[in-house]
């Protein structure tokens, strides 16, 4: 076995040192009833690297790959071009094969990029501080709801109908057995402002409300001004939790922090991450200084060493499970380390200028495509303002149309029936994301694919 360095001679010698005759003797605590004789049945024996590579490549080839076809899917996961240097750097063994930086003297590499990551996320979201990452946007979102409860000592969270339905489900699941109350509405496709329920939320906030959770841009691509909502939250002593699933949007639109959000959570996959069929992704979590001790997850902080040189350490860990156990702010331990590194690297490459230009490019391409598709007979563009994603109402079932295109190697968007199976009002709607990646040719193919799909 290529991964096992011990030779039989080594094993002999070591068993000798230990003073037993064979490996079985080392497992003597295992009840006889649970001892297996040979290798487990129903599983293959070891394979050469070549054979494994062949088998897995065969599976990989059975998927329709985004780079190989015109691609326009979004709804919480976006395809952006990630510079080659990002993947090169995160594969350095010193990053890839290290552990959580528990020994700071030999983990300054990890600690410093975490400090840089926290700074970038805080700056992007317009907040004071950010943590060292959560699993993904959906888990960051529910952690924000729990944090709001700790801060406000209230239990009622209002969820916007524009919040990603998976995020809503996760919040419901994790609060199901706690005494938290989750209030949600099913979204309506108001033309010009699909899923925009800011007004309704403002009215709904009461003295039991711990927080209001909104997404911007929302699941339909709509973007809204959250200032009034924030003001109302603060009047009522509730927190505004803003969710951002397309982080690139913050290069073009006002940050939630500037609009008054108290907690900003998000999905960071767009910067540095790939699509990866949904994971691993990158949970972003930012808030204001005054709430920092209620934050979930790891935090990296600056300090000095014995010789007075600047250095970094994990800090405020009395919030965390390994110190606080059942009183911890969260049970999270392993987070999204390496993906936050990819984010930090890609973000350093972009810089302020690159991010703004990239966001501008995304928006311009999306507007272009939206206008061309809206021009197709029977297609209605539902969005007023949007960033790089928008919703169309088709004269036919959205999922069917998308499937029809996929069979012709065009990945033309997400049929909302996929996300809202029980909501007939959304059955004909599709959400289309346009990033910097599609070529002009891809866009032409998309447009004719829609024309073709609707004409049959």
């Amino acid at each position: 076995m290529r991964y096992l360095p011990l030779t039989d001679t080594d094993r002999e010698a070591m068993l000798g040192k230990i003073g037993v005759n064979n490996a079985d003797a080392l497992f003597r605590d295992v009840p006889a009833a649970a001892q297996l004789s040979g290798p487990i049945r129903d599983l293959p024996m070891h394979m050469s690297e070549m054979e494994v590579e062949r088998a897995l490549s065969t599976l990989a080839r059975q998927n329709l790959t985004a780079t190989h076809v015109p691609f326009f899917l979004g709804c919480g996961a976006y395809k952006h071009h990630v510079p080659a240097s990002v993947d090169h750097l995160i594969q350095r063994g010193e990053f890839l094969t290290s552990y959580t930086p528990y020994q700071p003297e030999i983990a300054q590499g990890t600690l410093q990029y975490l400090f840089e990551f926290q700074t970038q996320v805080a700056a992007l979201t317009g907040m004071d501080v950010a943590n060292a990452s959560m699993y993904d946007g959906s888990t960051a979102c529910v952690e924000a709801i729990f944090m709001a409860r700790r801060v406000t000592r209230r239990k009622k969270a209002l969820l916007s109908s524009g919040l990603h339905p998976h995020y809503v489900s996760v919040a419901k699941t994790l609060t199901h057995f706690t005494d938290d109350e989750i209030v949600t509405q099913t979204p309506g496709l108001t033309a010009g402002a699909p899923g925009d329920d800011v007004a309704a939320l403002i009215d709904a906030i009461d003295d039991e409300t711990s927080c209001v959770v909104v997404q911007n841009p929302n699941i339909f691509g709509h973007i809204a001004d959250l200032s009034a909502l924030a003001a109302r939250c603060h009047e009522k002593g509730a927190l505004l939790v803003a969710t951002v699933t397309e982080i690139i949007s913050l290069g073009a639109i006002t940050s939630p922090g500037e609009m008054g959000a108290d907690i900003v959570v998000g999905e960071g996959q767009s910067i540095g991450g790939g699509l990866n069929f949904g994971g691993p992704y990158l949970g972003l979590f930012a808030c204001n200084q005054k709430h920092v001790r209620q934050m979930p997850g790891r935090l990296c902080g600056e300090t000095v060493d014995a010789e007075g040189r600047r250095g970094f350490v994990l800090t405020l860990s009395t919030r965390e499970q390994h110190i606080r156990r059942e009183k911890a702010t969260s049970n999270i331990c392993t987070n999204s380390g390496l993906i936050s590194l990819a984010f930090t690297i890609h973000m350093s490459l972009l810089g302020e200028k690159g991010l703004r230009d990239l966001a501008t490019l995304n928006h311009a391409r999306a507007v272009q495509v939206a206008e061309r598709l809206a021009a197709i007979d029977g297609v209605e563009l539902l969005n007023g303002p949007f960033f790089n994603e928008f919703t169309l109402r088709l004269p036919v079932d959205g999922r069917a149309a998308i499937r029809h295109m996929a069979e012709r190697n065009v990945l033309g968007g997400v049929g909302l029936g996929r996300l809202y199976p029980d909501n007939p009002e959304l059955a004909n709607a599709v959400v289309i994301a346009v990033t910097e990646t599609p070529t002009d040719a891809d866009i032409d193919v998309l447009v004719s694919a829609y024309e073709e799909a609707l004409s049959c």
Partner: protein
Amino acid sequence: MLNAQGRETGVGNVDAIVDEESFTGNRALMLEEPLLFEIGGSSRTGVDLPVPPKVESRLGGLERTRDIGLPGLSEPETVRHFTRLSRQNYAIDMGVFPLGSCTMKHNPRLNEKMARLPGFADIHPLQPIDSVQGALALIDSLAHWLKTLTGMPEVAMSPKAGAHGELCGMLAIRAAHEERGDPRKVVLVPESAHGTNPATAAFCGYEVEDIPANAQGRVDLAALKARLGPDVAAVMITNPNTCGLFEPEMIEISKAVHDAGAYVYCDGANFNAIVGRVRPGDLGVDAMHINLHKTFSTPHGGGGPGAGPVVFSAALAPFAPLPFVRHTGKHFEIVEEEQAFEKGDAHRQSFGRMVAFHGQMGMFVRALSYMMSHGADGLKQVAEDAVLNANYVLRSLDDVMTAPFGADGPCMHEALFSDEFLDGTGISTLDIAKALIDEGYHPMTMYFPLVVHGAMLVEPTETESKAALDQFIGALRTLVGRAKSGDADFFKGAPYHAPRRRLDETLAARRPVLRWMPPAVAEAAE
């Protein structure tokens, strides 16, 4: 002697020594590196972009007006910045990383290559099902491996890490009790358990109570039985436990728990010790998470990402979360929403969705690649070599260090020591750890588990060679000797050669600085 170019080819001044710092602060290949914000500029960028088409903005007046305040770097500077940072890290690729409970084993590069195949890395979670059949087949096949290796009938693939898996398991347990109309409130957790166990139980709204341990570092069965009762929903047990010991009475424990109408949650973080040799299903476990980033070697990546699939017994299977993959006979499908199983599905009682999309695909590919490479035979060997290495370390050190449970026989995959052998030296577990750093090692886990004073938990894993272990043992024995000879000053000063000496964690916590600020702002803030 001079060479043809007229330069000396000898060794120069042998005796010269240097004291003061260099101008740059660098020491040859040990390089200092500022924060990227200190070298970057807001007009600098490491990307080029096509010019955008001219369109009328549709941002609805929400255009960003204020600067973000994020300096950028050109690509050369970026590559150098992160390369220099990386060199301040220790990693498995550099040497022995015996961090107990973390299973720091070799990460095969084949797995990295496979995870990057466009067919896996570049597909969207919401693509039409027929366009991702290969991906679903992979998830299904990994699920088969996990169920077969654990001897359990069901597995939930979506949990994102071990702690998330614990949550998954406990939610299923809670759902099962609710279903029975018998919502119990208490979960029993041994003091030796990892912090995530009690934290998770609390997260699901349970009260956490301690399970007493016996003198051998195992669960005290009698005491447990005595405590079990109608209020106990579940027992969370780690097996092999965090002392690196197998629970010999596991079957009895499970029986007692079941008899009391409760469920057995097993923390599978230590599965590496028994993989391929023992199936938790045969021990009466109802739910167990598997850290793919430990036993199945998806890299830890400096803290993540991981993956924590959870296997379930028949009793809990119906409550498993969404989504899940199933084969309809003609193709694979993924069941994402409650609505999808009106048709009398086994999962009707699912407790729902615990994360967006379908789980850690990138980790699934790596884990399956790892499993196929080892095969059933190789995995059994993994467990045997992991346990062999740990016992070898235990028996090579227990004459000079204190092995609290050493007398009771072999350990599993971890060798546990207490700081008793340091009594009176004024030297602590921490000091030993820091001195190991100078020797070129990552220290063992310190001060965990809490049941042993000044714990040092050594987990070599199966991917260390005997030669590597012998050198590690030699280094440790030397340090122990030095400690006993009472050279406390030396230890208190360690590490000496690392990029940093000891860091002031007290200061960091007292006055938290959690982000960089532009100098001006920072001063203002003072």
